[in-house]
């Protein structure tokens, strides 16, 4: 199993929207290398003809009647919002200016 590099951790941090500090990157790269080395043992079974289990229960769609039910008011739904405006979540700009 290949080890994990600092550059890979930086890439994963970008994918996970974590603005990691330089010292965190160093520390994490070191620790993840150890953890991945330890968990890589699972690949012993990679070649085995075993069906994967994603969930302990056999999952099926759960349906309910399409009826209006009580729900949060917009005021309640916005009560924890860092910023709100006109009954909506106010967010920083999503699209670039160019």
């Amino acid at each position, binding site marked *: 199993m290949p080890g994990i590099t600092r550059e890979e951790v930086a890439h994963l941090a970008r994918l996970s929207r974590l603005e990691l500090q330089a010292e965190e990157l160093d520390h994490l790269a070191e*620790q993840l290398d150890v953890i991945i080395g330890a968990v890589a043992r699972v690949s012993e079974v990679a070649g085995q003809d075993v069906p*994967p289990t994603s969930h302990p229960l056999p999952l099926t769609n759960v349906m309910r009647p399409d009826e209006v039910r009580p729900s949060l008011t917009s005021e309640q739904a916005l009560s*924890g919002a*860092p910023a709100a405006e006109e009954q909506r*979540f106010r967010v920083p*700009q999503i699209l670039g200016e160019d």
Partner: protein
Amino acid sequence: MTDLIKLTAADTAAAIKAGQVSAVEVTQAHLDRIDAVDKKVNAFLHVDTEGALAAARAVDAKRAAGSELGPLAGVPLALKDVFTTKGVPTTCGSKILEGWIPPYDATLTTRLKDADVVILGKTNMDEFAMGSSTENSAFGTTGNPWDLSRIPGGSGGGSAAALAAFEAPLAIGTDTGGSIRQPGAVTGTVGVKPTYGSVSRYGLVAFSSSLDQGGPCARTVLDAALLHEAIAGHDPLDSTSINAPVPAVVEAAKMRDVRGMRIGVVKEFAGEGYQAGVMQRFDEAVELLRELGAEVVEVSCPSFTLALPAYYLIAPSEASSNLARFDAMRYGLRVGDDGSRSAEEVTALTREAGFGAEVKRRIILGTYALSSGYYDAYYGSAQKVRTLISRDFDAAFAGVDVLVSPTTPTTAFPIGERADDPMAMYLADLCTIPSNLAGNAAMSLPCGLAPEDNLPVGLQIIAPAMADDRLYRVGGAVEAALNDKWGHPLLEEAPAL
């Protein structure tokens, strides 16, 4: 009724029902106890004094009006801060949710209120339930009431410590890899992970959705059973909730008879890394089961040796996806929104500032395991291991009614000892993880103190899915026999705080 805080939940409810004490007096006694000892223990993140007293007053009013009281009416409870509580802060031990007041109750919270249980407050935990020591809480660690310099287990260390410190007779935990059972084991209390799907996850802030399961924590097996029946059952708001009757766990807890039961000792849970005193108390408990009339056999579950590696791929993978919801847009912390930064930059800065080291570690690990090129080798293989573990359980349960093992390889370790050594920390969950991966039911209950350090040892009992009653049958019998032998419950031996 001088020592209200020492009563069991069952006795407390009976005394309130009989009018020997009021629910307000019981609640006040626990609030006073929290006031007196929680500066040392730090089990609670938030104490809801007003809410608790109002709930207690409502129970007293109900009784005065001649209404029938339920089996836990007026009994105080400590709620892990991972379940939403309408109007009461819910942080999950994280800075990213500091100050958040949920606008709705979790189904479990609603069930507790419907049962007239008095919620004293919210307990400390490893951030988003990731950890085995409660050291990953953003709000300080919790001390183990047996020795405040040691960990109370995790992630539900606050709930277990509250029980052991007599701050509450009941508590709620969640168990994703052992977060109810391991804190129970190291604090000398009882903790149960019910069958996956039997306690609703609606309003339980998700860590790893295919593993997370809420469950009861208590000082006695019967109290855990009473709480189990109050919180379990089908919930249409949780699509993975099992629509089947809850096993009769209270009845089972009262049986105190294991004659004719077949009990399997898992061969793989022993050897290197297991503390001698833990194995000694475990072996004695197995011998006790034999004396009580159970038939004990050794069973082998060879895939269990791969459970820990599989768990540390599956749980972080699911966590990396679940925790994406903390994007600084709809609730919780927002950092760096000065008008010059994009939403994406604000999200990344907020998550950097709001998440602790272990949460970041698991998000990165999960993102790695799910990324293309590694998915088959890691996540895909871990899912195959999950199948093999279920098959090992199925094979074992074809020959025995329950399995037993130590709950944890060691007793409570000193605070700080494993804090920056993730792999050492992860080993605390070695024996508890297989049940989460398979989704079956498991309990930890105290089986003595390890001779070398005088700290509690937990006995783990594992039953097939939807056979939770077997845990209580075996646990109730072991508890009764041990209390007879000791002349008192184990917690009587804990030092005064």
